[in-house]
Structures are given as C-alpha cells and as structure tokens.
C-alpha cells in the first residue's frame, strides 16, 4: 500500500516536472554559445595577465616601503593611540543630533493594521495608543536593517518604561521561516510581526530600512527611509517621550 503510494507520488511529480521540458523546436545555439565562451574566457584571461604582475609588484613594493620606512612598532602604536584620541575628541565635541520631527499640527494619523506575532497573537497598532511607537519595516537580507536592529534592541531596553514601543514589521518573502532563527540569534526583545502587501502599501514602503516614529496620539511624527544615525533616532525618541526640552 505504502509502496503504491510512493509510486503514485513519483508519477505525480514526474508529470509536473515534465511540463518544464523545453519545446522540441528550440535548439540552443551552440556555435553562438562557443563564441561567447571564447570571448568571456579570453577577456578573463587577458584581465588576469594584465593585472597579476603589476598588482603583485605593487603589493611587494608597498610591503618593502612599509618595513623600511615605518617607525618602530612602539612609535607606531603611540601614533595610533593619538589618532584615536583625536578622533574621539572631535566627535565628542560635535553638537548632539537635533530631532527632525514634524510640527504637531502637521502630523497625520498613522494607518492602523492588524498583524500576528510569532505566537499567533494579534498585534494592532492602535493597541499601543498612548505610547510612542517606533515602527520599522525590515528584512533579514537587508544590510542597513541589520545595522539598525541592535539600536532598536537598546532603545526598547532603555525607553520601554518611559513609554516606547518598538514594532518590527518583516517583509521577508518566506515569513517566519527566515525571521524566527534571525530573531532568536539577535535576541530581539521587541515585537516582530510579518508584514503584508496591504500594510506595506498603506505606508508606501519603497525601500528598506524604513522607519516611522509615531507619537502618543497615534500620529506620524517622523519618517525615515534608509539609514539614520543612532543619535538622531535617540534625540527624536527622547523628544517624543517628553524627556528633551527641545520641541518641534
């Protein structure tokens, strides 16, 4: 019985895969293919020949110069320390990032949505009314998102009691399959939901990372498409939480 079932499955799959067989009329153009193969291999080989020796000579010359002309290691180390200190001082002297929030009168209501978290619990944006919300659209393959996620984890820890709620909406194609291991690995401590086409459209997500800061009245106070510095986020969050004297 089980054997019959296996045979049936094999036949069923074979029938479907047979659909992919290219039309008999189609013949790959071998002559053209061979020509392209010759061109590509010739291009790569001439590139290799053209660059191998000059590159090797350049690296060797740089190494020789470095060892001949560089100061002794202790002086080099001292210089590195001096440079680091100078850099740190120049950064710490910079004025703190200014919040870039919309004036309260110009803010629009954030579109509500209802999605589910990893446990299947419904998550509505409106449930967080009265809190400041950081709404981040992200994906596991998005480089910028991976830089920002540790900041959001830190914000959730630091400002949770003050009334911040971070929500991450993943737009990964395969949903929880990619997201669950990623979230576990990064120890994400805020709410993660899987986004839908409708929600992405509501917020007009065109690129990632995309982040919205929503005030306590549920209105959009700031929109950031692409990466923003950590200090800029922090300044805006603190202003929205009422911790900062600066008001938009």
């Amino acid at each position, binding site marked *: 019985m089980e054997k019959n079932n296996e045979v049936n499955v*094999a036949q069923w799959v074979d029938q479907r*895969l047979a659909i992919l067989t*290219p039309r008999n009329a189609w013949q790959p153009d071998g002559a053209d*293919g061979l020509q*392209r193969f010759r061109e590509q291999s010739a291009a790569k080989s001439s590139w290799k020949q053209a660059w191998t020796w000059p590159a090797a000579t350049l690296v060797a010359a740089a190494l020789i110069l470095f060892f001949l002309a560089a100061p002794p290691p202790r002086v080099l180390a001292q210089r590195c320390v001096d440079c680091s200190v100078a850099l740190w001082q120049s950064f710490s002297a910079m004025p703190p990032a200014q919040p870039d929030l919309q004036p309260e009168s110009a803010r629009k209501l954030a579109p509500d949505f209802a999605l589910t978290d990893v446990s299947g619990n419904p998550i509505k944006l409106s449930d967080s009314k009265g809190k400041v919300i950081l709404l981040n659209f992200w994906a596991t393959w998005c480089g910028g998102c991976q830089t920002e996620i540790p900041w959001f984890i830190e914000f959730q820890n630091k400002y949770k009691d003050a009334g911040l709620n971070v929500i991450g909406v993943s737009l990964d194609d395969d949903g929880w399959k990619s997201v669950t291991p990623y979230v576990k690995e990064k120890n994400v401590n805020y709410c993660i939901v899987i986004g839908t086409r409708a929600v*992405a459209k509501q917020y007009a997500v065109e690129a990632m990372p995309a982040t919205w800061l929503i005030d306590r009245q549920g209105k959009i106070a700031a929109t950031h498409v692409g990466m923003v510095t950590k200090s800029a986020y922090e300044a805006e969050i603190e202003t929205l939480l009422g911790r900062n004297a600066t008001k938009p």
Partner: protein
Amino acid sequence: MSQNHSLDCYYNVNASSEAVIEATSQAAPLDIESLFRIQFVRIARIVARVVRDPARAEELAVEAFVKLWRNPQVDTARAEAWLYRTAVRLGLDDLRRQVRRARYEALIGSVRGAPTPEEIHSANEEQDRVRKILSILDPRQAELLLLRSHDLSYTEVAAALDLNPASLGTLLARAQQSFRKEYIKRYGKK
C-alpha cells in the same frame, strides 16, 4: 553549407555519459572546447527547464563552462558531473532571484515594464507553479528532482550531486514528497 556542418556537430551528438567520458578522458589536460561541443546543448536544455527565457538559459550554460574553465582543480573524469551541478545551481539561483524580484515588485506596487514577446509566448501558468515550488524547495532537493527528471541515470545524478547512489532512491522519494506537499499546500490537489 559550412554553417550547417558546424551546427551539426552540436545537434547530432550522442551525449550519453559513456560517450562523454570516453571522449574527454583521453584528453589531458581537460579540453573544455571539446566538452563544450558535446555537452552545451544538454546543459542549456537543463537550465531552460528552470529559467523561462531560452536566451538566458544559453547565457547561464555558457557561464557554467566559464566557471569550469576557471576551476582547474576539476579533473576530466568529473567535469561532466561538475557541469550538471553548476548549471542546475545557476538556473535555480536565477529562478530564486526572479521570484524574489517579482514578489518585491508586487509588494511595493512598483510599475513593471510591459512583458517582452518572449515572456508572453512562454507564459504558462502550470510551468510557473512548478518553477515557484522548485524555488521554494530545499536547494538539494530541487537539484535532485531537476537532474533526475532530465533523464539522467541514478549514477549520473549521484555523481553530479556527490551523493551515495545507494541512498539516492530514498532522497529522491523524500524530495518528491516535499514537492507534492508544497504544491498541494499552495495550489490544492487539482
């Protein structure tokens, strides 16, 4: 006349595994151009099962040969198996890229240009479904199904995927089960 003759050397080749091994094993080092003449049509047809556009399939088949040329560690006896594996992987990678791009374009509602005549000609709902399932499956299982369904023998498939021929039947049955399960999950039993 001369052109027809040059094309005949691609179309009338008996590309059975034995013939290729015999033809290529005598040449040392690996004579890629001979291998190309013998194998190109078969490799391009394998890729064309995964990639919708035949021109793209030819490009990827050429790419597989260029990769072989750049990899001098592949010996003559294993070159054919290496080519099958590389071609199927290139095809599947391209398919996944297409599926991801289509999904993302649909998600953000961007306007895509009008379909090309080739796309219109080859648009086939059932083919698209099968390709979609292949793009979702575990890559090893997708490779196994594709090579086996292209009339490659168990020995050839096992050599191409570095598998033990004795366990191929079990792995194939598992891959078929996964394919069917995923297909029914998405499109129902019809």
